[in-house]
């Protein structure tokens, strides 16, 4: 009951005219960002964070705008998957398998509406799961001392590599790189300057927004420049959208698929490191195994093959918010970007967030519910507008994306040095991506580095320098076991899983051709 009353208070915050307006704008912009090939939710939110901050909105209003962009982009990812067979981001990859064949059969409109409904179901129930699960997790998190927190951060880094990279050494390198960057600036405990080399611009450390926008958005521009010189990108103008209003018979037939997809997706989202890609992959694979064992309809435009992964990836994005809000440990790239939003607003996620800032956390959760309804209402009638965006050549859109990234960072910092640093991060991001080094642990390292060090030093102060304090409680030992398992398991399974994900897509693409 207490949760319900807190949620009602949250709705009171989210339903003010200004916040409602921001939610609608966020949903619209997010869907557009998600629809553009190459620009997923992480990029979309990354580009818009500096803009939201420089507009001088309050913490709750900024959060509502940015989570609406997040959910919007998760919805939008399916549009280019279905119409162009190009996933907007990795989680939308599985939607291509049946979505594109449906579009080829002239059922693009129906596929889009169906996937909109499936996205709604996945995200809505995942948000309900968040309401129920996060406060429970908070109760456990309240038992954590500094040593347990240090180990928890280790768990986040150990598991985040997961299936995002097949080489765990590269994930560990990426995390250490991020932690190393976080050490630049004044030491929070003693005030000593570290790694600044008397360079005045580095005294305050490197703003993580600069790193995030550079690593995510600008490196995407470089990747695009490398692959699409000449602008040879498919255009949606060749695909007919057809009938838009969903066929209720079709939706009814897909309800069990959506339910299974939602459950699996939410579970995958809550697990640190797994995220939406695994959610949609598991949902699609298990759906195929349970309803189409002989492989007769899946991959050839079966609506259930659109409904399951869409419910799965949107449920996973809701699930990923559980560890992010309750423990301060993000489970995916986009939640890492959202964590940056919170830290920038001087809000530290974790158990204390629920007791210290209930208005913010419940306002945020209410905004998620709201965003879902807005997106459902927006996505079916406005499908035509979103598809028309795909007709604007990407060779014109990409430079605009780059310029908006510059505008955002410059308007926050007002310094040429910081914008140059962002370009430097963009180049580094391109090189790291070429070498298959995941960027998410780098971001997470920059975000969590200081917290991780502070907790280590506190634990050591309490124990008077005895390092055994890090394994001094049963909770800490359990966390170490999770960290080690999370690091070792992908070495055994991750490569196979990743290969299967790509094989599934390539195989269907071949069939589709």
């Amino acid at each position, binding site marked *: 009951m207490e949760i319900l009353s807190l949620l009602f208070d949250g709705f009171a915050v989210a339903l003010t005219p200004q916040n409602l307006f921001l939610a609608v704008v966020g949903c619209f912009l997010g869907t557009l960002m998600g629809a553009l090939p190459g620009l997923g939710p992480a990029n979309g939110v990354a580009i818009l964070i500096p803009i939201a901050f420089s507009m001088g909105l309050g913490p709750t209003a900024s959060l509502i705008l940015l989570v609406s962009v997040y959910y919007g982009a998760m919805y939008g990812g399916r549009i280019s998957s279905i119409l162009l067979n190009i996933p907007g981001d990795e989680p939308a990859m599985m939607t291509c398998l049946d979505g594109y064949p449906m579009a080829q059969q002239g059922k693009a409109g129906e596929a889009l509406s169906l996937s909109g409904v499936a996205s709604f179901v996945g995200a809505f129930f995942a948000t309900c799961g968040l309401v129920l699960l996060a406060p429970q997790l908070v109760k456990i998190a309240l038992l954590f001392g500094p040593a347990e927190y240090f180990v928890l951060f280790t768990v986040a880094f150990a598991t985040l590599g997961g299936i995002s990279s097949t080489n765990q050494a590269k994930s560990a390198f990426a995390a250490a790189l991020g932690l190393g960057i976080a050490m630049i600036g004044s030491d929070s405990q*003693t005030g*000593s300057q570290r790694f600044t080399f008397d360079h005045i611009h580095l005294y305050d450390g490197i703003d993580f927004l600069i790193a995030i926008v550079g690593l995510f958005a600008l490196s995407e521009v470089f990747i*695009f420049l490398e692959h*699409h010189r000449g*602008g040879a990108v498919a255009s949606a103008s060749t695909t007919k959208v057809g009938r838009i209003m969903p066929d209720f018979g079709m939706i009814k037939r897909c309800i069990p698929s959506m339910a299974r997809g939602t459950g699996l997706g939410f579970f995958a989202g809550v697990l640190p490191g797994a995220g939406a890609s695994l959610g949609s992959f598991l949902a699609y694979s298990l759906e195929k195994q349970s309803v189409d064992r002989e492989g007769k309809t899946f991959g050839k435009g079966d609506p259930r093959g659109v409904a399951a992964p869409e419910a799965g990836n949107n449920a996973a994005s809701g699930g990923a918010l559980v560890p992010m809000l309750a423990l301060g440990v993000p489970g995916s790239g986009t939640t890492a970007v959202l964590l940056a939003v919170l830290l920038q607003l001087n809000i530290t996620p974790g158990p204390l967030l629920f007791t210290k800032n209930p208005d913010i956390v419940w306002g945020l959760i209410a905004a998620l519910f709201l965003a879902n309804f807005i997106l459902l209402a927006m996505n079916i009638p406005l499908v035509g507008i979103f598809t028309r965006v795909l007709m604007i050549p990407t060779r*014109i859109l990409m430079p605009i994306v780059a*310029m908006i990234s510059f*505008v955002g960072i410059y308007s926050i910092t007002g310094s040429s040095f910081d914008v140059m640093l962002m370009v430097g991060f963009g180049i580094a991001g391109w090189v790291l991506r070429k070498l298959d080094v995941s960027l998410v642990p780098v971001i997470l390292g920059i975000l969590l580095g200081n917290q991780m060090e502070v907790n280590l*030093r506190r634990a050591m102060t309490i124990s008077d320098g005895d390092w055994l304090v890090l394994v001094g409680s049963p909770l800490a030992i359990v966390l170490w076991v999770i960290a080690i398992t999370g690091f070792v398991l992908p070495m055994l399974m991750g490569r196979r899983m990743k290969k299967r994900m790509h094989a599934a897509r390539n195989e269907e693409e071949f069939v589709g051709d």
Partner: protein
Amino acid sequence: MSDRIFGGFGLALAIFYIWAASIIKDSFMVDVVGPRAFPYIVGSIIGLCSLYFILRPDDEPDWPHIREFSEIVFAAAVMFMYCWALPEFGFLISTVFATAYLTWRLGTQPLWSLLVGVLTSVGIYVVFHLILGLALAKGPLGF
């Protein structure tokens, strides 16, 4: 080979990082661990991972050909110049040229690229500066 070169860079970075950590000055406020311990741990992880890349490299990544590579180098150079030009020439003028360059290199005709540059620059100026009130770089002409 790429991973081995990467590992070499990583190792150099780790050695530099550990050296830079060793010269961090102590403050009058001292805790048990001090400001150097965590950077030492981080530097060691970077070093160990780099050694692993040298000993067990992954398959060769798909590097771009010299032409695509030079596109990226030039685009990066233009972006750096754009950052330098922002306070010198102001947002509107700098953005026209930077956007036009990128649009041109992505396959639009030069004149059209210039038009896209002008439209983007003016569009962003109107939306973000005039409507949303964001501070953009001012040049000698005041915009």
